[in-house]
Structures are given as structure tokens and as C-alpha cells.
């Protein structure tokens, strides 16, 4: 079996999952909310990109900029109007709210953007890179680079900058961080907006392979959640690692075991893996304080 070709393909989809998963983990670490609506919000702003591109004839980069603005505003709105006001709700309550948000965005998309399926082209329409026996389209290369570079930039920001420190402090203990004078509200607001942009980018990257409908981000959503489970919820890089691993495993399972059931088998394998390492690949076991 040729290995390089499926590997390159996996890196491409892995980048999509990695960006979506980064959004989920950012929100989880700062707001302690399992962001089930990450895919749906990405779907909404991604559809906005396709809509602007299709209706105004604006260039793709401009449409993506509009999409980013939409994503940021949505992130702000959700955190400001909903999540922030849920201080007294239980963790489950917050989770349920993000489930409700899935439905809200799913219902809003056809109202705002119409019911006709939209199309979004690749950022780089043609051109291939030949690497030995394998091919990689320029667009594929761009997607891989986007995933890796954005993840890397985020890590640098988290590790080296003041805002990164604020995010990490909020992540490790929200109330202590607040007492230390860290503007935790701004931090969560930023986290939600960043998650929104990451979801939008994931949507724009996956869109050319399909049609833009309200459900086109479903697989990304499920896979991104699983990337977090596999990578563990305690670090920022775990989910990214998980995302690439899932993409690679999925591609090889589809090639060598079953083209129809590859993903399903993989999900089951991950669930079984949890029995061995309950906190994921890079998650530490932690002791709940009693």
C-alpha cells in the first residue's frame, strides 16, 4: 500500500479537525463549557462566507474576512448574552445551552442565507505538487499549512504573551485568576470569538469538498469532539494531536478495512482506548478535591 498519498490527505483533513478542536478546547479551558455548537457556529459563519462569495462576487479572501467578522460577532454575542449569564447554572445546564445553540444556528442559517445549497471553491483552484509517487494539490498544502501554522501561532501566543498568560491562568483556576486581577471576562470573550473564527476557517477549508448546507459541518463537529477526548482536555496541544491522529487513522482504516465503516470503527476504537487511558493521550490523571 502506498503510504505517502493517504498520509498527505490525512494531514489535510486533520488540519480541519485540529482547528475545530482548538476552538472547543479554548472554550472548555476558559469557560468550562463543552462547546457542542462549535460545528454549528462554524457552519453558520462558513455559510456566510459562501453566501457573500456567491451573491456579491467578492474575492474569496474578502468573503473570508466578512466570515471572520461574523464569527467574531457571534462568539461575542453568545458569550456576552448567554454563557456569561449562566454563572449559576450547573455544568450540565451550560452544556444543554450549547445544544440549544446548535438548533438556533441550524434554524437561522436557511432563514438568513436561503435554502439553496451554496458552493465554495478552493482557495487555490489548480496546481499539484509531486512528492515521489504522491500528489499534493497547492490547496491541500495551504490547508495543511493553515492548520499547523495557526496551531503553532496559538501556542506561542498562549506561552509567550501576556494575553496567553491570562488565558492559561483563567484555564487553570478561574476564580483565582479573577482575584489576581486578570480580566477573566475579556478572556472568555476572546476565547469564544477565537473559537468562532477557528470554526469558520475549518468550514471554509472543508466546504470545497462538499456543498454548503446546514449539516455540512456535522462530521467535523463529531470528529473535533473526539479529537478532544482522544487528546485529553487538560492541555491545548492534546486535541490538536488527537485531530491529526484521527484523520490519519480514519484514512488508513477506510483504505485497508472498510471504505464505508472506517470512521465508525475508529470511533469505537477510541471509546475502547478510553478504558485504557481515561484522560486521553496527554491528559494527566487528576484528583478531584473532596
Amino acid at each position, binding site marked *: 500500500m502506498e503510504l505517502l498519498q493517504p498520509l498527505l490527505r490525512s494531514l489535510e483533513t486533520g488540519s480541519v479537525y485540529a482547528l475545530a478542536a482548538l476552538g472547543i478546547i479554548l472554550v472548555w479551558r476558559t469557560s468550562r463549557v*463543552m462547546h457542542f455548537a462549535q460545528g454549528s457556529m462554524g457552519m453558520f459563519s462558513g455559510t456566510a462566507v459562501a453566501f457573500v462569495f456567491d451573491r456579491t462576487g467578492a474575492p474569496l479572501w474578502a468573503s473570508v474576512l466578512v466570515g471572520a467578522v461574523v464569527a467574531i460577532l457571534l462568539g461575542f454575542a453568545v458569550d456576552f448574552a448567554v454563557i456569561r*449569564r449562566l454563572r449559576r447554572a450547573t455544568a450540565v445546564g451550560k452544556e444543554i445551552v450549547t*445544544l440549544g*445553540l446548535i*438548533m*438556533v444556528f*441550524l434554524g437561522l442559517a*436557511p432563514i438568513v442565507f436561503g*435554502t439553496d445549497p451554496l458552493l465554495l471553491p478552493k482557495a487555490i483552484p489548480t496546481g499539484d505538487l509531486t512528492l515521489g509517487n504522491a500528489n499534493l494539490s497547492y490547496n491541500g498544502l495551504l490547508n495543511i499549512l493553515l492548520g499547523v501554522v495557526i496551531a503553532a501561532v496559538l501556542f506561542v501566543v498562549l506561552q509567550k504573551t501576556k494575553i496567553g498568560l491570562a488565558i492559561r491562568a483563567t484555564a487553570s483556576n478561574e476564580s483565582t485568576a479573577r482575584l489576581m486581577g486578570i480580566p477573566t471576562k475579556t478572556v472568555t470573550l476572546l476565547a469564544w470569538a477565537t473559537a468562532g473564527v477557528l470554526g469558520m476557517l475549518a468550514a471554509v477549508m472543508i466546504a470545497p469538498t462538499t456543498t454548503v448546507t446546514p449539516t455540512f459541518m456535522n462530521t467535523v463537529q463529531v470528529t473535533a469532539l473526539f479529537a478532544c477526548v482522544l487528546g485529553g482536555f487538560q492541555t491545548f496541544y492534546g486535541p490538536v494531536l488527537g485531530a491529526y491522529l484521527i484523520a490519519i487513522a480514519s484514512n488508513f482504516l477506510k483504505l485497508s478495512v472498510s471504505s464505508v465503516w472506517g470512521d465508525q470503527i475508529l470511533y469505537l476504537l477510541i471509546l475502547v482506548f478510553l478504558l485504557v487511558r481515561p484522560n486521553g493521550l496527554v491528559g494527566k490523571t487528576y484528583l478531584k478535591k473532596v
Partner: protein
Amino acid sequence: MSNASAMAVRVARHPHVRFLVFGAVLMTLPALASSGIMMTSTLSTLGFTLIYAIVAMGLNLLLGYSGLISLGTAGFMGLGAYLAAYVQDDLGLGFWVAVLAALIVPTFIGLLVGVVSLRVRSIYLAIATLTISEILLKTFEQAEWFTRGTAGKQSSYPVVLGIQTDRSSMFFIIVVALVLVMMLTHNIVHGQLGRALHAMRSSEVAAQAMGVNVLTYKLFAFAVATMYAGLAGALYLFFLKSSYPSTWNLFLSLNVVAMVVVGGLRSIYGTVAGAFVIFAVPELILKELPVIGDTPGLPYIFSGVLIVVVIMFFPQGLRGLTDLLRGLVTRRPSAAASEQAPEEVAAR
């Protein structure tokens, strides 16, 4: 004499008797439909509402009493539906075996998923069930020998106790099932099982210290929820006489979450009311509205916004509303008693 009447009052007050009365009232609906007072399509809608009330009752046990989320409801319900069709129509084994299969198989699968995910962290149950639901959905599309794939599985009204059922008699069966489920749920939540679930949700450490095996009880609640979903799936199939894979998607699961939340966590009648608001109101009322009536996605927004608004502002759901009304009408004597308590304690 007064003894006998006191007894009568006690019987009438017994929650199980109230469930029976509630069921009896529902049983009059098919008569309304056949006499033309109510449209038959309305009867169908109400029948499905009651079926969803059964599923939601299970999720309420899980969510309301044990604080766990399952996103696999649609998958398990669909599995129940296809199993019922397969057992009745393909294997020819009849109604009861079909229902039994729909109860047992999803519960078994659910338990497996639960054992794996609940050992880790409660929230993993949501993700694991979401995945199982996706896998089941894919199975419904692919396993043509079992489900006829996207073409859809056709079935027929079952023969129950030697009687060929029709739409009205299936409605009766649904009501009977609902009343049984209400009684069973009531028994669970008002006994030690319910107390243990309460304890677990409210303080897992205290529950453990008191000897509650948390994993067992989480699995118990999840198993019951899955069993109700399987049952509801079978009833759904027999009432509609067909099943298509697209029915059993994530949004059905989310709608069931909405029913529980809107109806009010930990409320049996509230759950029925929640099913009515989330399923029947869009069908019977929203669709008929002028101008916005046929907006695409309206039912989704309706459910989604209700979930968010209820959690934010009315965490008690519809149950809170009835409590509020009751509070306006009667002043509970116990409220006065608890106001006195602090002084008594201080005086000691």
C-alpha cells in the same frame, strides 16, 4: 363511614390513580377524532406527542435525576423502531416479541456504551452516545437487509391480543404504555433508587460516602432511558407503519433534550407538557401561523431558543409555572413552618 371516605380520598390521591385518570382522559381523544370534532391528523400528532413523552420521561430520569446527558436518544429510538419492524414483519414473531426486542437490544448496547464512557467522566457519555447515534444512523442507511436503507422500512398495524389494531387502537396502546411508564418512573424516583440518583447528582462524594456505587446508578438511569427510547421507537413504528433513516438524526435527540428542559427537570407531568410544547405546538400551531408559518427552520429555532431561555431564566421549566400558579392560589402551610425553624434552633 368516615373511615371509608378517608380511604377513598387516599386512593384518589394516590399518584398511580391520578396517572390512570390522566390516561382515561387521553383515551377519549380518538372518539373526538372519529366524531369529527378533532381532525385525524391532529390525533396522529397527539399520538406522536405521547410517544415522545415516553422517550423524554427516560431522558428526564437521566438528565434531571442523575445530571447526565445522552445524545443517543434518536439512535436508540430508531433501533427500537427497526427491530420492531424486523421482528414483526420479517420474522413474523408478532407484537410482543417485537416490543421485547425493542426494549432489550437498545438497552444492552446502551449499557455497553455507558460502561465505557461513564467510568471516565460524566460528560463523555454525551460524546459517546452522540457517536453511537451516528453509527446507528449509518447502519440504518447501509444495512438494507434490516432497514431497507433510505427507501424506508414499511410495516403494518400489529395484531395485539388477537385483535387487529388500527390508528385509534394503536393510540390506546400508546396511552397504556405512557401510563405504565409514568407509574414506573414515579416508583423509581420516589424510592431509594430515586434518592440515590438525587444524592449522586447533588453531591457525588456524599453519595459515595453513603455507599452509593455511582457507576451502577449512572448505568441504571442510562439503561432505563435507553429502554424507554426503545419502547417509544417500537410504538412509533407501529403508529406510523414506516421508518426512514433520516428521522433518527441528532436533531431528534436535541428535541428530546428540549422537551425535558422545557417541561421541567424531575417532573413527570412536566415532561408530557414539554413533549407537547416541543413537538405538537410547532406541528399544530406554528405551521398554521400567517407569514412566518412556513419559514424553513422555524421549529429548530423554536426548540433552540426555548432551551436557552428556559435554562437562563426559568430553570424549573413548565413545572415552575404550575408551582407558581399553585403558590398564588394556596399558601402552603409548610412554608410558614419552615420560617419558624431558625428561631427554634437558635433558642435551643
